[in-house]
Structures are given as C-alpha cells and as structure tokens.
C-alpha cells in the first residue's frame, strides 16, 4: 500500500526507517516517528471504529490523549493483547498488530450500523430506564442483548508475560508537561540545583512546539527545545521521563507517573526489561504545565470520518508529514483555528473555505489567510456535513451574531475534510484530583484550576495563557517560585524570543445551529465515544436532569475512555443553553485519576503471585516440605496442616497423628505463635490490667494461661504468659493475633498508663518452638537434656532454663493437648538442629510430627478454645464457660471487666459455648452448622447457635464438637438439631466440652 496522504517532506518522522504494521489483517507501511494514528492517516484509513450505541463509522479526530474514536485492540499474540489503545498515543513499531474493536462483519461494512440508523431514534438518553421492564420475566433476555453490545476491546485470555516495576521518588520540583511552559520551568529549576523530575506523556519533549512551524529566536523552535533538553540531560539533579504520564495527583503532593518503557518497541517487553513502570513521587513542589485541548464544534453529522479538530490537522501535517485529506473546510470561532488552514495550504493541499463564525474577524492569521488568497466566509458556520464513510461535502450558512440561529440560505461545498475549532480547554485534570474545584473563567471560555492546598504551581495554557511567549514566561516564574520555596537561589535563565501573533477576540460558541431544531436535525455529537448528542442533552434537561452531573450520568457523557476531554465543556454549554443558565451555573466538572488509563499490571507492580503477601516460614519449614506436609495459611505464615504418608488420606493421617500423640509422643512446630517479651518494674501490674485473670502472685519459673478482652468485654486473644524474672515476662499470643496484641499493649501503655515502667518487644522470630506432647514426651526429652524432668522438680505450668541437644533452651511444661507436654524454645537458628535431634532419639517412641489439624483435634478433645475459631468478637469469657479465668477481686478495673457487665452481656439466654455429641457417634457435624430446637419449624427458623469446632476423634472413636447454644450452659443433656444443606437433620446432645480426661490427670503425670 502506498501512503497516499504522506507529504514529500517535513515532519519529525524518519523516512529512512520504514516500518510495517497490520490493521484489521492488512499490512501497511509507516515510518519511525509515526504514531499508529498518523500512519493510519498516511495510508488513507478513514474508518477506525464503529460507535458504541449507533454503530456509526468513526475516524480519527484528534492527535493526542483527547482522541475519542481511534481506540484499537493491540497485540500479536493472545497473551499480549491490550484493549482500547488510543492510536494517537501509540508509537508505531515494526510488526505492530492492531484491529478495530466494533463492527460486524467488519468495521467497513457493519450490519449493526443499519440497525443503528433505523433504531437510533428509539435510543434517546436513558432509553433503557424506560423500557425492557415488561414482561418482567424477559429482563434476563433483554440484558443479555444489552451486554452483547458492551465493551470496546477485549481482555487477553492468557496471563500477562510481562513484568512491571515501581519506583519511589522524591524531588524538589516535579514539572508536568514538556511544552514551552514546562521546558522553561524545568530549566529554571534545574539550573538552580533543585532535584527535578520532568515528565511528559509523549516520546519527546516539546509539546505544542513539535507540531507547529513557529520559531524561537528566529530559528525553528525545535532547535531551542533540543538545546534545553540536552542541557537538562547533562544535570545529575534532573530526571527526564518521556513517555511518562503523570496520571494521578494525590494528597500531600504525592503523584503517580505511568512510564511506558517498551510499548514503543514491541507488544512484549525485551527479556529482562519491565514493560512499564509506575513512579510514586513525593514532590516538594509541582509545576503543572499540562497545556490545553482544542474543542471541536458541535454540528450536524460532525462525526463523519474526515471531521477533525483543527489543531490535530496541523499536528499531522507539521509533526508527522501527513495531510489527512485533499480538500479542507475549516470552521472556527477564533484565530488559532486558522493555523490548520494555513498549514494545509502550505502543504500543497486545497483549502476549500475558512468558515469563521465571527462577523468580522481580525488578526495576523486571518490576514495571512487572506494573503494566501484563501476563501474566507465570515459570519457563517458549517451547519451540516455530508457523507457517510468519509466527508463528501458541507452545508454552510450564515448565522446570527449570537450564534443561536441560521440566518440565511445554505450553500454546499465539496470537501473531504472538515476541521473545527471552538477554542481551547485548559488541561486542569490533575489539579482537580485532590479535591480542588475548578473555576470558570469567561475570558478564557473555560475552567481554570481552582484554589488548592497542595504545593502546586501552574504555567502556560493550563492557565489559559495560550501564546508561546506567555507560556515561556509563566514557566520561568513557576520555576523561580518553586526554587525559592525549596530554599535554593535561582540562576539566570534567558527566555528565547517567540513570534508575537496578534489575535482577534474569539466568539463564545459551542453548538452550531441548524435549520431544524436540535431534536430534528441530523445528529450533532458532543461526546463521540459514548454517542451523546446535543439533542440527547436537551432531552435530559427537558426531563428534569438539570444538574450537569445528572446530565452526564443520564446521557453517559464523559464516561468513555477519554473521560470527555473533548466533549465535556461542549456538553455543559448545550445543557446551559437548554436550561437558560450559564455554564458554571450548571455545575463544574470534576476530574478523577487517571488522566489517561493505566494498566492494572503497572499498578500491581511485582506484588502478585508469591509476592502478593510475604510468606513466613519457621526454621523447620524445609523439613516439613521434605516430609510432604500439607500447609495451611495462618496470617502470613505457612504452617504444616498435616503430614500424610504416601497413599494416606487426610483422615487416615489425622487418626494416626492423634493416636500416636496420645499413645506415645507427637511433635508440633509451634514457632509461629506470637511471642512478646515484657520487662519493667510494672510489667506484672500491666499484665493484670490487660488480662482478665490474676497475675499478682505468679512466681518466677511459673506459667499461666490468660484471656485478653477488649473494652467491650469480648475475647480477642489468649495465650500463656510465663514469669521469667520478677520484672520479666514472656507473653504468647495466637499466630494471627501477634501484631495486633503488641500494638494493643503499646496503645494502653503509651496513651493510658505512660507512668508505668514497662517495655514490650516482639520476639516471635527469635525463637523456634518445638512442642513434644504425649506420655513418652518426658522420656524423649530426658535423652537430650540434663535437666531434672521429674514431676516434683518440673511440674505442669513450670518452665526451666536448660540445655536441649546441646543448645540453650527455655522449656515450658504447658499443654494444649492435655498430655504431658514440653514446649522447647531455642534460638531460631538452632531450631532445625534440635528438631532433627528429637527425631533421632524419637524413632523408638514413634515420634510423630503433626500439624495444625491434629493440634485442633487434640485440644478439642480437651475443650480448649481457639481464639478466632471458637470466638468471633461477640463472646465474653462467661459465654465461653471460662468464668474461672475472670478475676473478680483485682483492685484495678482491668480491660474488659466493665464491658462484660453491660445489660446485654449479662442476659441469661446468651449464646454459650458447650460440647456437643451427635446421637450417631459416626456422624461428624460440619463446622458452621446452625442449631435449632425445633427442626420442623417453618423458615425462617429460630437458630440457637452454630458449631465452631467439629472433628472425628480417633482417641474416643466418635465425633466431637463444640458450639454455641443459647443458654447452653444450663441445658446439659438437652438436644439440639442441625438441619444441613442436604436436607438431613443431625441430632446432638449438649455436654461438657471436655471430652477426654475431665480431671486433667494426663498432663500432670
């Protein structure tokens, strides 16, 4: 294919570096320096998509982030698909594969377009709120039809092969936008030695200077741009970020920059490189030099391919060497629009007419057009476009001075391209992100950044300062101010001399009148991507959707992937006119991050998969893995769940582990339990305040179980705390609760009782905890220690400092199984050594490793609770039948005491934790089953409580369960029924939760 619209010379493309790309299965050529959009235009591709609602053919209208139509699917392979890429922002690379997203059977001949033409009149805004309601039963069918039309591009169906990085940055000055204002701001800040980050969304700095023929200091502007960029590149204190969009401005001057590192090279990043990076920047000062977007005008059939924004026409000619047509009609309300016609003419193409809505335009560019002999039609407008797949002509008519009606006869002109300019809208998006409301300015005819509490400066077109010289000057000032604010002294910067262009006053006009009323005229599009028309906005207003937010939501204006960059102001103007209000009276328009869309991958960074959340392992983890353990996630920890032998089922493994522990000895890796070292002369008193039971008399060398409650009296953690010295304790917590408990202790110490001398430190990771349990645990331990393990010397709830397997150890004789049990704590890096020694000596005792599941069964046989499983934040110690653990006489009103005395907490019929034995001992109740007293009651059934723990007990050869029953502690022997999902009902009897060894003899042997 030839590039029929490519100019012979000019532009910033490299004609010596041809590239090929594919669009809708056909191969085309472009050059290095092209965007996908400029290459498509060069090749004469008119139709780039079909519209969302009406399936109308659409072409490229803009040249940057504001493009609403050229939204394509990219990617050569399934895994590298990217939906909704704006062709105007995608640099061309060799082998790029793209396709349009809507249209069937093809974007050129779309059958839906026919339906759109016929049914379009049936689809005013909000039409779906008014229909598809009857009959009710058909809604699902209706909705599936609506859904078929959803979406633009498609998600890849395979996992992303690329990686994404994040980088945290600090700087003195972040300059956003690389046009003349940004360049002068960055240069000023850089020369003063400030740490500068300078970001621009495009592949090269220069902004508007890249797309015009204007001069600086009498030379092409690009020479000055190159010199500045070269100078900046030379500074160590400056980071240049091209291809990087500042997409979010958050509180306290935190900004995110989305850098596309490799999207201009290929659709998959080269090996070892991240595809994109997200910079998380904390900037002392921010200079927003984000420029402005030109507004197209709203006129009949203004969406026919060939209709473009005036400035885009200049950009394609000047920057990319592409004239996107042959015969141009320009419609403008202002002087700047003329530049498109001048550039078109200078590119050797035919300017059919310049249609100026003003009666009597004056200005340098107007004069230049006259000098070139261009056909200038004043006081008129293009009221309608002819053509379907490409503009074929326009209707031009005189309009009134206020722009509200057509005042004369219509003449037709032949043309293939219509450029329009309705003035400019400052790019204020970032300034809105932190909640600053923009302010309408009648002179600028647009919204300007509002007052802000951020350390933010603005320069150039974002302020409505559209001339290059003003932009340069404001950039300089912003740079000076930022430099001064960060305490640096400014260096001198000489600004280049820009061309001075005299401009006449613009006309405030957005919506071009038609011979017919708006409701009957051909469609006049406001928001292309969401197919919102001027008539649609009028309908919304007529129906009472008067606030601009209502209008936007009712019509979907601004809800496309371009977020209404082209259409929002025009839409507000149409609504204002319909409501007989001013634009600011209809509301303001607030922008949210992102400025342009950002890959989820870039936001997620590397924090997925294994790095989604850190995995914590004990020192014996490798051993567990080698033994084929199955693991359970507890908090961030990977804990062994059970240790199946080859061929063994889970149930078989658990039965074996349970029996071996009660018959001989089992071992549990309990290292994950939270451990907090507590010291200080008030440590003991402190414990008494945070635990519900008494601590005053716990002697050195003794251990005690404690319950911890919130101020509401509800249990939130539990564990054993040991007295290591008179003023020294070791607290253990649940595995998942460790961090929370430590913060809780610190909170009370620091905020309520700072006078207490007590210190806390987490020591969870310092220790490996190896728990041996069972009748042979003493014999086993005796082989590895010199410590006197006799019951007399080392009783239940004692702890000893000793040596185990040659390693210093704290051994705690505490038990979560009800067996004689020793928790051996050694320095974490000795854990594996001691573990292996225990196994060396334990073989003759059939030492059996067990995991959390057997731990759960063995403790349930003894009726011990697990905080978090048998509690849920709504139960106090008495509900758990653990009143024995609540001191009544402690002088200090400890945390939880008052809470559990509230009216609702002393009700008789509270749910209370009890044991439950199924009538059929072989039936294991599912955990979570809900109990009822009358299984035949109608739905909704009154429920009395749920099963919290339930297991098959191999030791008891029956099922056991714990659960809540209303008033259960006074209902021993009564029946509860559990209606299950499969329709069966399990009957169970309320009993003590201590199923085994009720007197607790085994742990005391």
């Amino acid at each position, binding site marked *: 294919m030839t590039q029929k619209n490519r100019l012979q010379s000019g532009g910033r493309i490299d004609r010596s570096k041809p590239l090929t790309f594919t669009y809708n299965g056909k191969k085309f050529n472009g050059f290095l320096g092209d965007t996908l959009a400029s290459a498509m235009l060069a090749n004469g591709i008119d139709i780039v998509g079909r519209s969302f609602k009406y399936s109308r053919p659409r072409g490229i209208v803009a040249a940057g982030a504001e493009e609403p139509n050229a939204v394509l699917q990219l990617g050569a392979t399934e895994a*590298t*698909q990217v939906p*909704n890429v704006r062709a105007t922002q995608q640099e061309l690379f060799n082998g790029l594969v793209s396709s349009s997203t809507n249209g069937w059977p093809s974007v050129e001949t779309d059958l839906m377009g026919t339906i759109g033409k016929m049914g379009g009149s*049936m689809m*005013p805004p909000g*039409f*779906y*709120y*008014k*229909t*598809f309601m*009857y009959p*009710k039963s058909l809604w699902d069918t209706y*909705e599936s039809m609506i859904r078929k039309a*959803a979406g633009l*591009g*498609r*998600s890849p*169906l395979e*996992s992303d092969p690329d990686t994404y990085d994040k980088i945290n940055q600090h700087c003195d000055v972040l300059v956003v936008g690389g046009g003349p204002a940004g360049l002068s701001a960055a240069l000023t800040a850089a020369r003063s030695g400030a740490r500068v980050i300078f970001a621009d969304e495009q592949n090269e700095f220069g902004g508007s200077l890249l797309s015009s023929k204007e001069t600086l200091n009498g030379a092409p502007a690009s020479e000055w741009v190159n010199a500045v960029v070269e100078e900046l590149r030379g500074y160590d204190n400056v980071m240049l970020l091209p291809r990087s969009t500042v997409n979010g401005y*958050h*509180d306290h001057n*935190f900004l995110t920059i989305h850098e596309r590192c490799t999207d201009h090279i290929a659709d998959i990043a080269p090996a070892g490189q991240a595809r994109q990076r997200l910079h998380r920047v904390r900037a002392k000062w921010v200079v927003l030099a984000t420029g402005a977007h030109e507004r197209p005008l709203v006129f009949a059939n203004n969406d026919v391919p060939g209709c473009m924004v005036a400035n885009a026409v200049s950009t394609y000619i000047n920057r990319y060497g592409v004239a996107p047509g042959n015969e141009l009609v320009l419609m403008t309300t202002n002087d700047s629009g003329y530049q498109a016609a001048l550039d078109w003419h200078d590119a050797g193409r035919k300017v059919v007419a310049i249609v100026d809505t003003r009666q009597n335009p004056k200005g340098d560019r107007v004069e230049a057009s006259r000098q070139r002999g261009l056909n200038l039609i004043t006081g008129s407008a293009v009221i309608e476009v002819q053509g379907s797949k490409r503009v074929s002509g326009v209707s031009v008519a005189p309009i009134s001075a206020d722009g509200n009606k057509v005042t004369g006869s219509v003449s037709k002109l032949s043309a293939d391209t219509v450029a329009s300019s309705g003035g400019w809208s400052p790019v204020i998006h970032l300034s809105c992100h932190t909640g600053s409301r923009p302010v309408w300015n009648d002179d600028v005819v647009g919204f300007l950044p509002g007052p802000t509490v951020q350390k933010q400066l603005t320069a150039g077109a974002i302020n409505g300062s559209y001339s290059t010289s003003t932009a340069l000057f404001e950039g300089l000032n912003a740079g000076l101010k930022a430099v001064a604010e960060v305490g640096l002294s400014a260096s001198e910067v000489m600004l280049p001399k820009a061309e001075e262009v005299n401009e006449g006053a613009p006309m405030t006009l957005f919506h071009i009148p038609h011979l017919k*009323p708006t409701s009957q005229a051909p469609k006049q599009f406001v928001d292309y991507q969401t197919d919102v028309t001027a008539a649609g906005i009028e*309908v919304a207003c007529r*129906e*009472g959707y008067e*606030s601009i*937010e209502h209008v936007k939501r*009712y019509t*979907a204006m601004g809800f496309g*992937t371009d*977020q209404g960059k082209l259409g929002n102001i025009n839409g507000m103007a149409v609504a204002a006119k319909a409501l007989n209000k001013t634009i600011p009276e209809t509301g303001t328009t607030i922008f*949210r*991050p*992102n400025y342009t*869309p950002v*890959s*989820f*991958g870039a*936001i*997620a*960074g590397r*924090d*997925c*998969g*294994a790095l989604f959340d850190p995995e914590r392992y004990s020192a014996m983890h490798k051993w567990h893995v080698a033994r084929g353990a199955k693991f359970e*996630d507890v908090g961030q920890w990977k804990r062994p769940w059970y240790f199946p032998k080859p061929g063994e089922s889970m149930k078989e493994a658990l039965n074996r582990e349970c029996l071996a522990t009660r018959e001989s000895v089992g071992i549990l890796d309990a290292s994950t339990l939270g451990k907090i070292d507590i010291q200080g002369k008030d440590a003991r008193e402190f414990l008494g305040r945070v635990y519900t039971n008494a601590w005053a008399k716990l002697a050195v060398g003794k251990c005690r179980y404690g319950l911890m409650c919130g101020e509401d009296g509800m249990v939130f953690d539990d564990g054993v705390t040991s007295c290591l010295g008179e003023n020294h304790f070791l607290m253990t917590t649940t595995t998942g609760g460790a961090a929370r408990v430590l913060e809780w202790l610190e909170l009370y110490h620091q905020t309520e009782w700072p006078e207490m001398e007590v210190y806390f430190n987490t020591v969870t990771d310092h220790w490996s905890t190896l728990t041996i349990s069972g009748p042979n645990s003493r014999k086993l331990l005796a082989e590895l220690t010199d410590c006197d393990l006799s019951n007399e010397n080392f009783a239940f709830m004692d702890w000893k400092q000793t040596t185990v397997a040659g390693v210093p150890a704290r051994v705690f004789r505490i038990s979560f199984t009800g067996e004689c049990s020793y928790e051996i704590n050694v320095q974490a890096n000795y854990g594996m050594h001691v573990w292996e020694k225990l196994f060396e000596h334990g073989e003759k005792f059939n030492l059996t490793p067990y995991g959390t599941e057997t731990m759960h069964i063995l403790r349930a046989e003894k009726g011990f609770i697990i905080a978090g499983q048998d509690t849920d934040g709504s139960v106090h110690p008495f509900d758990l039948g653990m009143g024995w653990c609540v001191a009544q006489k402690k002088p200090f009103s400890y945390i939880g005491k008052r809470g559990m005395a*509230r*009216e*609702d907490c002393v009700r008789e019929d509270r749910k209370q934790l009890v044991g439950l034995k199924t009538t059929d001992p072989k039936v294991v109740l599912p955990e*979570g089953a*809900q109990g*009822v007293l009358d299984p035949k009651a109608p*739905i*909704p059934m009154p429920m009395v409580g*749920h099963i*919290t723990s339930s297991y098959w007990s191999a030791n008891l050869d029956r099922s056991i369960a714990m659960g809540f029953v209303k008033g259960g502690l006074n209902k021993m022997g009564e029946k509860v029924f559990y*209606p299950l*999902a499969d329709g069966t009902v399990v009957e169970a009897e309320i009993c003590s939760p201590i199923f085994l060894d009720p007197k607790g003899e085994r742990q005391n042997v």
Partner: protein
Amino acid sequence: MQHYSGFGLFKHSLSHHENWQRAWRNPTPKKKYDVIIVGGGGHGLATAYYLAKQFGVTNVAVIEKGYLGGGNTARNTTIVRSNYLWDEAAHLYEHAMKLWEGLSQDLNYNVMFSQRGVLNLGHTLQDMRDIERRVNANRLNGVDGEVLDPQQIKEIVPHMDCSENTRYPIMGASWQPRGGVARHDAVAWGFARGADSHGVDLIQQTEVTDLIIEDGTVVGVKTNRYGDIKADRVGCVVAGNSSVLAKKAGFELPLESHPLQALVSEPIKPVLDTVVMSNHVHGYVSQSDKGDLVIGAGIDGYNGYGQRGSFPTIEHTVQAIVELFPMFSRVRMNRQWGGIVDTCPDACPIISDTPVKNLFFNCGWGTGGFKATPGSGNVFAASLAKGEMHELAKPFSMFRFHDGALIDEHGAAGVAH
C-alpha cells in the same frame, strides 16, 4: 405520571422526543410538611416514595443540598446481596432483596437489577468455616445460598485463577444466585420520580443548615434558600454527613466517616458474568453492562470527608484483582473515585429514634448501603409514618451501643460489602 414503555418510546421517537415530561417537578417548598426527609440520596428518596405510596403520607419534602442521588448512591459499586450472618441483618437485607426483585415494575423505571449471582471467596480454613456458618444461617433464614468448591467456582467464573498456584488459593465460596448488581443512578431517579408522582416535594440545591428543636422536640429545619420549614417529623438520611447533622441536634453518633474508594477499567467485551468478592485478598469485581470492570476495596483507615482516599489502597486492591485474574494485568484502569461512608463499630446501620423527639436517623450503612436501599427506605418510611420503629428496624437502634446489643457483621461485611 407519564408511563414508560417500549411502545411509549416508539411514540416519542415520532415526535423527536420533544414531548417527554419532567421526571420530577422542581417545586418551591411549602411552609410545613408532615415529614421532612433531609437528604435526597437513594435511601432518602426511597423513604419518601414508600411514605407516600405505601403509608399514605404524601405531605412530604425531601431536602437535598446538592442534586438527587449525588452522594454514595452515585459512587458505589452497585452490588446487591442479602447473605448476611446475623438474623437481624439478614432479615433487613432480605426484605430489601424482595423489594429489589419487583422494583423496576413497581417504579415503572428500569433500575436494571441484574441477578447475576454473588460469590464470596474463601481462601483459608477459617474463611471456609465462616462461609459455612453464614450460608447455613442464610438458608434457615430463607436467604438463598450455597457453598461451592473450587471446581464449581471455576464453572461459574472460568477466567479466575482457581489453581493451587496463587499466594492464597481459593478454597471455596458462598454463592448467592439472587444477588447481583443494579444501575445505581436509576435507583435514585426511579424513586425520585415515583415519590414526586405521589406528591412528594423534592427540593434540590438546598442545604439544611440547622434543625429547629423546641423543648427536646424537633419542629422543623432551617435551610439556606427557603428559611425555616416546619415539620411534624424529621428523618435524616445524610450518609457522609450524619455526625455533622447530629451535632446540630446536640448529640453524637457512634460513627466514623471514612473514605471508600472504587475504580473502573476501560470497557471491555464481557468476560465476567457474576460478582466476585474476596475479603481475604481485599477486593471485589463485577462487569457492568457497559463493559467496565467495576472494582472496589476496603475503607481507608482515617476519617475523611474528601471523597478521596490514599493510593496504596488502590494499589492493594488492584493487586488482589490481578492475583485473582492474572489476565486482567493488561487491561487498563480508567477512573477511580471515593465516597464517604459512615461506619458503625459493628458494621451494621443505625435506623433509629434519637434523644430528640420526632427526629429520626437512618445512617451508618458503612460500605453496605446501596444494596439495602429499598428495604432501608421501606422500614424507615414505616417508622416515620407511625412515629415508632418498624420491627425490622428495632435491632438497629443507636441505643444498642449503650446496652451492648451489637450485631457484629464485620465477618460478613468485611471489606467487600
């Protein structure tokens, strides 16, 4: 009221849609109403609608400081479900669910309630115990639901990573088929149009600057545009502003207002037909009829009225979504926003009388307000009509924070409401 239908649409297309009536009037307020509702969000408008339609109280004004449905109604992720754990919450939300099921027809306004099912994923053994507990309670309370295993989940959401290879593999889920999504704006507009058609005055762009209280009884409100307006009863339904208004009435509420953030992707072709929620990895996602992936997260930890939160919350949520759906990595996030949610200590709302006579508050919905909209409005309307709390509302009294009868829904509510 002009009846909406496909045929009507056709008729109007013949006259170029020039003859559509206003969906609601723009009235000047009267001097006195039987009931004033402060707050024109979904809940307030629903309250007004049911007051007028079901309870015959038509001398009602809704006073809204901005535009109708402009608060959290316009900012939520539109999920509707009723699978709450505790009886009191389940009954309230199921009451709402039953109203949702006929709402479009009742309002003659298509709120696009789409019962595409809601999955709540479990990633740990404790998650699964909680899911079993909740689903069993739901079933016995007459709320639909079942527990699914990863294979069954895969059949419903084929593109989700249900393998063992993730950091927190999916172990199962609860599944409520009647749950789904609705078009949030349409809910507010439908209720507004319905209320207006029964004579309710909807007063927009008018701020209630104070409550007029005489001898411990509320007798009206002060407004910035229309001066004093009298009322026999006042119902405040001002999510994100409840504490501020309560202070004017002279009492505090057990509320903290937090930012809650949400985001959408660019529209893509349908790939996800249900709502997927995960408390454990902190994220939830559904796909709208327009094609956007609608994604939400947990609240930010600090108080905030700024309708925006902190970026790490967004990052964490997106990580969760990419973890669940690795293929979405190359899909792009279009827009994020924030709402202000009034959270209660027990993650349940307050629908309550107050220390001031004839003054009622409906607030504290936290992250769970949208799904309750019709039910909340309905029971609040019943309470305002009679001057005493509806049976379903009684457990949600603000005074439960005195006697301790909390309804702790943190488990069921979690992040992903």
